[in-house]
């Protein structure tokens, strides 16, 4: 009976430490925010401006972030993400652009500035909206036009429409399968062929056959927005693992046809090729050898 109570108290202790850390983190953020506000106050008091644009807008969030990071590293021993820099950024922007500018009207310049400010604060979010969402909508319509054009083309030439099969057409999104690692391991190592990654075989007699190379190119998922990014990630990983196995088998067959039975200093590389990087290239390379068994 002692066991459960022990674990309970351990859990309780963990929770207590967690709560303790959280309180300290909040304290660090508060100190950072206070430091940032102080810096902004100094900039405002001494009117450190360029053409009426207060430099405190830049330096206050920076100061807050630095103070918070330094104190957090001292007290908690880890970085908590410079949250006060954020708070300061929003505070200063609100104060100087809205509170101090009651006459601010709605026009193109105001809208533009708001986008620029937001872009500075949340570049990933705003770029995502600007590039990905807008780009996605545009590319969707362009693709529609393209498919209509293709249909017309094939209708005029009296041929059937050609359908391009890429991995993304397999509709993995709903259920990305797990790659069977065990089976793959057995398959690759059951080829009657040695894949050796060491740069040299010092302890085995062998005959050198020269450099060998094999490539596999697989289509890349061209969808920009995924309903479930985790599943899309899994599908990509599945394709890459399968491509790698194919590539290794290709390399082994090439070396086997030259009379070898092993590859030494094997390198496997993954990269992007094609227009705008629309395909993955997997290459395997190494020195083909004949092992004297």
């Amino acid at each position, binding site marked *: 009976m002692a066991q459960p109570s022990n674990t309970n108290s351990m859990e309780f202790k963990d929770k207590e430490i967690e709560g303790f850390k959280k309180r300290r983190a909040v304290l660090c953020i508060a100190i950072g925010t206070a430091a940032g506000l102080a810096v902004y106050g100094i900039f405002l008091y001494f009117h450190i401006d360029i053409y009426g644009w207060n430099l405190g807008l830049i330096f206050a*969030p*920076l100061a807050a*972030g*630095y103070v*918070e*990071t330094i104190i957090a590293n001292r007290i908690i021993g*880890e*970085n*908590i*993400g*410079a*949250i006060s*820099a*954020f708070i300061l950024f929003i505070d200063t922007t609100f104060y100087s652009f809205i509170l101090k500018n009651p006459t601010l009207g709605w026009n193109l310049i105001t809208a533009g500035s708001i986008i620029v400010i937001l872009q*500075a*604060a*949340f*570049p*990933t*979010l705003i*770029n*995502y909206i600007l590039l*990905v969402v807008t780009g996605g909508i545009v590319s969707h319509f362009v693709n529609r036009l393209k498919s209509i054009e293709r249909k017309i083309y094939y209708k005029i030439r009296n041929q059937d429409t050609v359908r391009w099969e890429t991995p993304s057409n397999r509709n993995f999104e709903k259920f990305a399968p797990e790659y069977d*690692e*065990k089976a793959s*391991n*057995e398959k*690759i*190592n059951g080829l009657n062929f*040695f*894949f*050796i*990654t*060491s*740069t*040299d*075989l*010092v*302890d*085995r007699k062998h005959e050198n056959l020269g450099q060998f190379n094999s490539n596999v190119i697989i289509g890349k998922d061209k969808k*920009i927005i*995924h309903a479930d*990014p*985790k599943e*899309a*990630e899994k599908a*990509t*990983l599945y394709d*890459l*693992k399968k491509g*790698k196995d194919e590539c*290794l088998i290709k390399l082994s067959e090439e070396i086997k046809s030259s009379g070898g039975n092993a590859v030494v200093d*094997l*390198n*496997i*590389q*993954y*990269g*992007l090729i094609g227009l705008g990087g629309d395909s*993955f290239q997997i290459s395997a390379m190494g020195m083909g050898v004949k092992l004297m068994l």
Partner: protein
Amino acid sequence: MILTSSNTLENKEIIEYKGLVTGESLIGANIYKDLFSGVRDVVGGRTSRYEEEIQKARDMSLTSMIEKAEQLDANAIIGLKISYDNLGGTMGNTILITAYGTAVKYE
């Protein structure tokens, strides 16, 4: 399990080459995690998060590789290579981490 990038194991004799073992993992793609970065980049708020993610992914690759070596009844991995490849993604943030090496049995 001994992991080494060298060709031999010092003071130990390799009695059998068991074969190739690999491990892959992917990070990034998950853009939603990272929407509110920005000001924080300048003061170094984000880098530690990324380091953690990369470390986690590398551990996953290594674990998967070691599992395969155990399956082959090996007790060491030589010629270990770990590589990080940028595979594009929405903001160039899809990173593939691969670990591979030769599983061997030593005495």
